[in-house]
């Protein structure tokens, strides 16, 4: 009978968690020096065609230069040097620390809460294409293309947006590397500089190698990726979250007590929290309880990671090479410094 819990609380939180992209420090370093006009790089002439992760093919007379994107995808595009003409977000875009490294002065903000898109402003921005994400509804990667893509309040809103410009969706699910590659291929199709992307990829691979050496140098460190609130602890299932799936291929050992069963995470009430206290390091999703709140829970107070001071605030990073490199560097440092306490 986990269904009510899952749908009522977990699902929004799942969505929130999965979607709240990038870390505070993400993105900037690689791309800040770069020019950021929309069609920088290889603006190809002639008809343009792109098939997105839902299988929808978008045909345009020319390569799109005016891009509108949902915040999470906008961050990835910005990292590749593509500045959207407008952004819609799940939280306040202008004050979102994830955007701190980018100049949004010429960018129209269409909405600051989930499902809010100012259609008049969208039309005025005259986009050639709208970019957002879509989340699979199960472990097999089923994409519900009859429902709205992520960021839209419903199908009717999405239809209205599609009247203004075609919508391309990136699947945020399954293998992490696929998500990164899909994000990158769309950015390239939109004119991202190939040399810049290649350089970002190199730094990504270097960071991945560093992460692998960190896990090898300090074996036995188990990382618990979780969200917690008054109802209990939600432990992310390694294979169901692209980020943990990706990093696990570089040797990160995540807490994964029940890989089968319900999609995306295991939920433990506070009474049952002891069952999941197997990690040496806790990555606590920024939207839920942090170390202080966790310490206030009597049934969690003796958690080894908490007692050892190894609880870190964690936010998913944008799925581009540079943001992922930054994220992996952060995690490698945490793992190197961690003490094996379990």
């Amino acid at each position, binding site marked *: 009978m*986990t269904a009510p*819990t899952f749908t009522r609380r977990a699902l929004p939180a799942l969505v929130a968690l999965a979607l709240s992209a990038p870390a505070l420090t993400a993105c900037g370093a690689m791309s800040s020096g770069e020019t950021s006009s929309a069609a920088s790089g290889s603006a190809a002439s002639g008809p343009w065609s792109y098939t997105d992760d839902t299988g929808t093919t978008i045909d345009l007379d020319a390569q799109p230069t005016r891009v509108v994107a949902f915040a999470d995808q906008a961050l990835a595009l910005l990292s590749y040097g593509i500045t959207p003409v407008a952004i819609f977000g799940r939280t306040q875009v202008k004050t979102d620390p994830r955007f701190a490294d980018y100049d949004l002065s010429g960018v129209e903000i269409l909405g600051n809460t989930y499902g809010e898109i100012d259609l008049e402003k969208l039309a005025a921005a005259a986009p050639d294409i709208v970019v957002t994400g879509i989340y699979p509804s199960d472990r097999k990667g089923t994409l519900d293309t009859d429902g709205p893509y992520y960021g839209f309040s419903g199908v009717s809103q999405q239809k209205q947006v599609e009247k203004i410009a075609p919508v391309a969706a990136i699947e945020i699910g399954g293998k992490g590397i696929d998500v990164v590659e899909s994000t990158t291929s769309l950015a390239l199709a939109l004119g991202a500089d190939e040399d810049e992307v290649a350089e970002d990829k190199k730094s990504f691979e270097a960071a991945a190698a560093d992460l692998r050496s960190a896990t090898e140098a300090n074996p036995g460190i188990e990382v618990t990726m979780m969200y917690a609130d008054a*109802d209990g602890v939600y432990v992310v299932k390694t294979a169901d979250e692209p980020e943990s799936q990706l990093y696990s291929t570089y040797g990160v050992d995540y807490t994964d007590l029940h890989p089968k069963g319900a999609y995306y995470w295991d939920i433990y009430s506070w009474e049952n929290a002891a069952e999941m206290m197997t990690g040496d390091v806790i990555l606590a999703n920024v939207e839920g309880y942090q170390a202080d709140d966790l310490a206030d829970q009597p049934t969690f*107070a003796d958690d080894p990671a908490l007692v050892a001071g190894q609880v870190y605030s964690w936010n998913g990073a944008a799925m581009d090479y540079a943001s992922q490199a930054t994220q992996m560097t952060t995690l490698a440092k945490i793992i190197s410094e961690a003490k094996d306490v379990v």
Partner: protein
Amino acid sequence: MPVTSPPRPAPGAGVAEPPRPGRPRRGGRRATLALTCAVLLVTAASLALGSNHLGLGQVVTGLLHPAEDTGAIVWGSRVPRTVLGLLVGACLGLAGAVMQGQTRNPLADPGIFGVSAGASLAVVVGVYVADLTSVLALLWLAFTGAVLATLLVFGVAALGKGLASPVPLALAGTAVTALLGALTSFLVLTDESTLAAYRVWVVGSLSGRTLEGIWPAVAIACVGAALAAANTRSLDTLALGTELAQGLGESLLRARLVGLGAITLLTAAGVALTGPIGFVGLTAPHLARRLVGSGHARLLPASAAVGAVVLLACDVVGRLIGGQSEVSVGVVLSVLGGVVFVAIVRRGRMAAL
């Protein structure tokens, strides 16, 4: 609104003996006994049952040895939520009974006077402006907001010389609730990410809470209960209609003020401790009325007891049906409370107010 027994105005006008309240439907003593047993049972169940299936022996060991692992579960989780469930349930049930008596509206719940909305707005403002997150700070914020909202509602209704009929009060309450709710949404939507403390509070759950800050809330609740007790006679008189009540020498202003005070303090105490919890204030008085009739001397304590039992019982159910996780009490209340409420209405003869 019909009255179960015809009023028998005392001879002569002025401050007279109030009319006989509606006759109890069942023996008063049996109802008292039943309610006492129900409270004890649900308390025992709340301590014994949970999503971690401890044996009864382990629970007792845990109660005796707080330092052990089972002790952390029993003392850290079950005891606080039992205490909170009883206290908040009683507050909401009592507030609901006073509210329904004041408005003579069977669908009134404590939210109607803007109390919950005021509390929510104050919590959001406190978190947003001053970055307050401690339990005690939220408690005082919720309390202040609840009181201010009630004053606002009362002021609006009084301006329109509307104290006589309950309708302007309810309308003013609904309008103020909508306004405050809009302001809350505005703030929350403006900066969702900084409002984690508010989101945790607003869930309306008994889980994951501590007993920190409970004493001020208990004090506030006690004052509220005392005001409710002082309001008993007025509520019986008001049930006859405001004109008749005035004829009987009832001071409407005083009756309304005392009643509103009780509702505000009781709801504020409950809301401050666990966040807004619906349905208890609405259903508990109905169940209580079926048990003891509509005389407020019995209805008020019975509503408090029923409220405590309903809230805690729903919490226990939620703990048992979630597997290793739990279903939050708000969800259980909406589902079970809804079913029970429909059953009450369907059985016709909704006990008269």
